């Protein structure tokens, strides 16, 4: 008996009406991965457009809709719900020894908000004067005057925010109230710590974007002039409000991925994490400091020089806890007993790609250099290294790590490694080319490009196609495993956190007896398990 077979309801209703945290995690997984592939497809179409600029495949207006929709889906519907919605929902209660989250019904409601928001955004594509064309940042006053269906799209993003808030609220209360007896704060697995830091940002920052997006809608519908300079409003106020949320949101996206990596590396090195407390508290430090650096998106906006100074300084300071985490992961490998199976391969790739993402971030954080790099392909390359190389790769690693536990099936490990090759090569061709193009001055959000950027664009496009092939292989392997995979063992990787101590797939209520915790996590048996 497992959560996949037990329960009162049958068929599809047993899923969409379920309040079981595990089923909700799976609901999120399926919806998010589907949306991810739509956005990947749009990404491929954009790379085709850049290859065919002499006889363009798509109209400029279509291209503008492409990058807007690609961004909105990837940010708001994939990386932002990201690991918390899928693996947080599924594993947080199990890892801290609880039977469910604190508010299971709110948890289901959060998924409905997610679906409703998604539906609204999709509706904005096919109704009114066509899909939004402002980029996912919806900068005023262009977002106020654009004739496209911005209001509906923005409203969709607003609704998606509720999904995020409810998830955060649930995780905070769950971690505070439902830890198993004996599980002190410093006995919690680090994935739970990262979710905790994330949840606070979700709860505190999301309302800001909510109200900001509502103001955009009110301004479009009723002409109030908060952001419109023609009416005495301030367009920079929009940017401040947008980034006060959206920069911390970057940490909503990356922290849980770091958390998952922190689970995977000890398991495959068969030794405890190096510097448990440093990692736990650096999650909180990142969450806190990350809320104070939003201005680094606005160094060329004409903000005061003092503000530029302070935001640049804080940006360099927030890099410190991130660097510490990278050192801790590396040190965990030292004198371990390492086995590089697929989850570990993707976790190590995360460390490498995230490092590039972080280092390119330092370049942009330096004010003088930011002037050249801002709003170019360098930024696009940088945040794909962080969001895709980081969060995306973390998501893949987590999926490979927990897939057998979630579904009770094993996937083909050879194909998972094989798919890594095009993903890794394609990824670096695509985004490294973007970094170079950006330094040369290629602006973002251009449906075409000047001749001096031609070579870079060709390399990027080819890389993009290779990457897409790798992604299809990666997920096809898992889909096949669901159908035909061999039955998975209870503990295929030799993990020691609680999820590996219960049957595979987990039973409906996770634990028949709530365990007592009387030791720190990650205590491996050095002799091998």
């Amino acid at each position, binding site marked *: 008996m497992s959560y996949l077979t037990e329960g009162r309801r049958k068929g599809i209703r047993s899923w969409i009406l379920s309040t079981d945290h595990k089923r909700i995690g799976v609901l999120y997984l399926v919806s998010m991965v589907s949306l991810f592939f739509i956005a990947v497809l749009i990404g491929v179409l954009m790379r085709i457009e850049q290859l065919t600029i002499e006889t363009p495949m798509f109209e400029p207006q279509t291209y503008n809709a492409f990058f807007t929709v690609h961004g909105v889906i990837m940010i708001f519907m994939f990386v932002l719900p990201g690991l918390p919605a899928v693996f947080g929902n599924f594993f947080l209660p199990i890892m801290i020894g609880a039977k469910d989250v604190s508010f299971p019904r709110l948890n289901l409601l959060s998924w409905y908000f997610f679906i409703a928001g998604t539906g609204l955004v999709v509706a904005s594509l096919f109704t009114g004067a066509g899909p939004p064309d402002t980029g996912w940042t919806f900068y005023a006053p262009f977002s106020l005057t654009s004739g496209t269906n911005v209001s509906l799209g923005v409203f969709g993003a607003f609704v998606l925010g509720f999904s995020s808030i409810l998830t955060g609220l649930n995780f905070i209360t769950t971690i505070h109230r439902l830890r198993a007896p004996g599980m002190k704060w410093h006995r919690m697995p680090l994935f739970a710590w990262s979710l905790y830091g994330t949840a606070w940002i979700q709860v505190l920052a999301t309302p800001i974007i909510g109200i900001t997006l509502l103001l955009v809608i009110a301004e479009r519908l009723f002409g109030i002039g908060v952001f419109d300079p023609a009416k005495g409003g301030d*367009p920079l106020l929009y940017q401040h409000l947008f980034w006060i949320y959206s920069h911390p949101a970057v940490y909503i996206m990356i922290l849980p991925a770091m958390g998952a990596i922190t689970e995977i590396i000890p398991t495959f090195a068969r030794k405890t994490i190096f510097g448990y407390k440093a990692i736990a508290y650096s999650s909180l430090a990142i969450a806190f400091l990350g809320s104070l650096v939003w201005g680094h998106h606005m160094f060329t906006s004409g903000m005061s020089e003092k503000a530029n100074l302070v935001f640049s300084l804080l940006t360099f300071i927030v890099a410190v806890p991130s660097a510490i985490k990278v050192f801790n992961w590396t040190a965990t*490998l030292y004198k*371990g007993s390492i086995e590089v199976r697929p989850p570990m391969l993707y976790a190590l790739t995360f460390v490498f790609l995230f490092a590039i993402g972080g280092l390119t971030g330092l370049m942009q954080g330096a004010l003088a250099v930011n002037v*050249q790099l801002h709003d170019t392909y360098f930024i696009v390359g940088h945040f794909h290294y962080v969001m895709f190389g980081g969060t995306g790769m973390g998501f893949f690693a987590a999926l490979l790590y927990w897939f057998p536990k979630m579904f009770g099936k094993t996937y083909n490990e050879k194909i998972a490694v094989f798919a890594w090759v095009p993903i890794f090569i394609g990824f670096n061709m695509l985004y490294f080319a973007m970094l170079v193009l950006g330094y040369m001055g290629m602006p973002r959000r251009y449906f075409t*490009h000047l001749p001096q950027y031609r070579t870079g664009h060709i390399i990027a496009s080819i890389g993009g196609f290779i990457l897409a092939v790798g992604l299809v292989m990666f997920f096809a392997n898992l889909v096949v495993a669901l159908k035909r995979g061999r039955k998975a063992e209870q503990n295929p990787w030799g993990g020691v956190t609680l999820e590996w101590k219960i049957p595979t797939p987990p039973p409906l209520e996770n634990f028949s007896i709530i365990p007592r915790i009387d030791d720190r996590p990650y205590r*491996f048996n*050095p002799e091998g398990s």
Partner: protein
Amino acid sequence: MPIIPQASSAAGRVDSVFLFIFVLCAVFLVLLTAALIYFVIKYNRKRHPRAVDIEGNKWVETVWTIVPTILFLMMFVYGWTDFRYMREVPREAMVIEVTGRQWAWSFKYPNGKQSTELILAVDKPVKLVLRSADVIHGFFIPAFRIKEDVVPGKENYTWFSPTQLGSFDIECTVICGVSHANMLGKAVVVPVDEFKEWYFGDETVPTPGRTIPTLPPEIAAHPAVNVLNQRFCLTCHSFDGSPLVGPSFKGIYATTQTVLDSKGNAREIVVDDDYLVRAIQDPAADILKGYPPSMPKTSLSEDELAQVVDFIKNLK
């Protein structure tokens, strides 16, 4: 970085900060990658079946907190110093007013001379005062390493001193509508004498916007031409039948066209006086099929409106 020219006083500085950070980062990345690979090989489970549990090490952890902090602060200071240079305009700089509008740049010099190209004298500092006529744009000259947003309702600035002769691309970096990618321009750097000749030359001052093509005299004399040019209609509409961002005005009168209303429903209309007035006064109401909904609202006076309608009517 030789991948683009260093053509201004700011360029070398920006590149040196970049190089400083880049070298540190490259060294770090190489060390990190080497460590990852080395550990994975050296402590492979086959070779090293027994892991040694290490919970942490205060000394190591302190060092790897302090060293990066110091390096990061150095990067910050270096970036800040050169940024200050880029924000402090020398007194002798010539002030040029830059206007960005969907989708063209125009430049106005202290003597009132206007141009669609940024003509500059080599080694003479200029301060650009940036204004927008509509939405936010970004003023960027990659070869000069300067960029500043052009924000409506706000006056931003940037300055530099061009150091190389030649013609350099100006690009818009903030998404501003369908032709964002075509919002390009040229900064042309010429020797000082040549600049003076141009600056004080008495050739007719070109008005901003696209140059008006040579028109048959009976059309050129029409008062609407001036209105259309001054209101920037001609950045999007042509007289010769070729579509730009919007349809050409040539021969549209009395034709039947398909338009989409704000809900996206298609409808056939005949182009008559009423329709033209509506198309100009309330461009968002009906969108001509196949074109982006990007025409801005411009308030023309009754007279001007009548002239424009009359003009379009007679442009066969």
